[in-house]
């Protein structure tokens, strides 16, 4: 009964029976076509404006000194060295923590726990975690890692926090890649007497590895651009020395940019634009690698 009612509602909404033929509708169609084209191009235009604006105000500021100088209260002497090194540290550590855990969790969910109640719960939980604002992860890192585990505002606290933040993204994308390996491959491996893990390690993972890498690199590029959670855990804005161990305090490029943007002097805003060029280069290179891997992978494997 409820079904037929719904169907009726649906039919009423369609309302295709009463379309009169008229030139008006052709014009309407054409007009919308151009209007929508403009809207679509607007997105591209804004992207171009943003890049042009950043490049035109920051590019001339980038030189070797800018890359190799530490922070300074004078805009002309300030550089991004400590922030850049901090970003590279954070990238490496976050990858080291998040990749093995994320990929393992995805393998468990996709290959072992299909359709159990636990798997269902994990899935809902991961979907929810993916929607939690990044700043909330910062609060978790502040209380759990920085305070309860006494790690302070260190590199380790920062990368643990970011690792938790990108874990859901890694798990979801890795599962998608594992899904693309056809079941017949697994069955063939079992038929040859391989155990479950041997099948995963020798057949499934090699077949899906570039897809997995695409996902994890995209997740890592997201971590590189994160600012808010790192500010919350207590990363500093002024770090005159380069971190040498995971327990050292640090700053990263996005925080340095935030710091410079927040100052009223024009010279610091130019510094910010220059640092943005460096940050965007890192982000775009990572995205480029990810797209390249995905492209190659789609080309190479045809089951």
């Amino acid at each position, binding site marked *: 009964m409820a079904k037929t009612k719904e169907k009726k509602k649906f039919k009423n909404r369609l309302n295709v029976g009463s379309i009169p033929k008229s030139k008006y509708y052709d014009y309407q*169609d054409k007009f919308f076509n151009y209007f929508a084209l403009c809207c*679509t191009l607007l997105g591209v235009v804004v992207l171009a404006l943003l890049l042009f604006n950043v490049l035109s105000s920051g590019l001339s500021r980038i030189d070797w000194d800018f890359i190799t100088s530490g922070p300074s209260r004078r805009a002309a002497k300030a550089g991004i060295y400590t922030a850049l090194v901090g970003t590279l540290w954070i990238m490496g550590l976050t990858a080291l923590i998040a990749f093995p*855990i994320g990929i393992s969790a995805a393998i468990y969910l996709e290959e072992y726990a299909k359709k159990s109640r636990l798997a269902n719960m994990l899935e809902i939980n991961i979907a929810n975690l993916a929607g939690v604002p990044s700043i909330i992860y910062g609060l978790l890192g502040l209380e759990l890692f920085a305070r309860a585990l006494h790690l302070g505002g260190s590199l380790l606290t920062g990368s643990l926090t970011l690792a938790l933040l990108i874990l859901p993204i890694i798990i979801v994308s890795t599962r998608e890649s594992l899904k693309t390996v056809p079941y017949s491959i697994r069955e063939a491996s079992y038929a040859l007497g391989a155990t479950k893990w041997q099948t995963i390690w020798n057949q499934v993972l090699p077949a899906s590895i570039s897809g997995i890498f695409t996902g994890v690199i995209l997740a890592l590029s997201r971590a590189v651009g994160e600012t808010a959670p790192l500010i919350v855990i207590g990363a500093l804005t002024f770090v005159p020395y380069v971190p040498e161990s995971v327990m050292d305090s640090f700053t990263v490029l996005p925080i340095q940019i935030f710091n410079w*943007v927040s100052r009223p002097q024009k010279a610091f805003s130019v510094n910010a634009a220059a640092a943005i060029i460096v940050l965007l280069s890192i982000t775009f290179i990572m995205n480029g690698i990810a797209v390249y891997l995905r492209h190659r992978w789609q080309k190479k494997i045809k089951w």
Partner: protein
Amino acid sequence: MSNIKEKIIEKLLLASSLITILTTIGIISVLIFQTIGFFREVSIIDFFTDTEWTPLFDNKKFGIVALLSGTILTTLISMLVAVPLGLTISIYLSQYAPKQLREVVKPMLEILAAIPTVVYGYFALVYVTPILQQVFPAMSGFNALSPGIVMGIMILPLISSLSEDALYAVPKTLREGSYAMGATKFQTSFRVIMPAALSGIAVSIILAISRAVGETMIVAIAAGQQPRFTFNPFVPIETATTYIVQVSSGDVPQDSIEYKTIFAVGMTLFVVTLILNNISFWLKKRYQENYR
């Protein structure tokens, strides 16, 4: 022997996936623990009814409404930009656009989503605000309008790509049926495909709202840090997320009431986004069942 190895590996993999559960438990317990501490000192009624937020001043007032109005205002502005544009783009790309154009435009829109938010913040403050000030001379250097618009641009790819997926999920037969009746593309898109994909589109919009509510850096840079209960887009405001950043980057003694406020604000944010996300999951499940 190999049996034991298999078992150990399975347990290790299970342990990795359980970390996600621990994360959720961690977030919830941290927020609840500090929020309880906060409400020991501040009345919950004042928290929701007071319209001033001044925990960092001598005369402390804790009216979350002043922060939430900032969040609602910027979110609203971003949605006014992102929803019409995003939906138009998704219809254009799925129904109208030639294939070559699609292949060029889609990756470009994806780039918009890959840009770090701090960059958008810079863009809003340094580029968009001065332009808007020429149109509205009364506008302050920090305001809700400019970061709202830029946030809309940031969220655009989310709405356009999710809505496009929803439009694609509509069975081809519906579209063909409509064309067979002599309908134009416009009529087919807006009277047949859009209504059929409505819940999928709603999912994309709700997820976008949730993103906007939790967005931090754009508003922290360009909206100012002055909590006030207003819906005037031209004056400086402060969002809930910005307040957390503001307190974190200053020197606030741990376990002071100022410190606890960021967790109470975080709790509010967490609950709002959790509700929004779960509405979208529920809707998504429903529309996926529709076409099975």
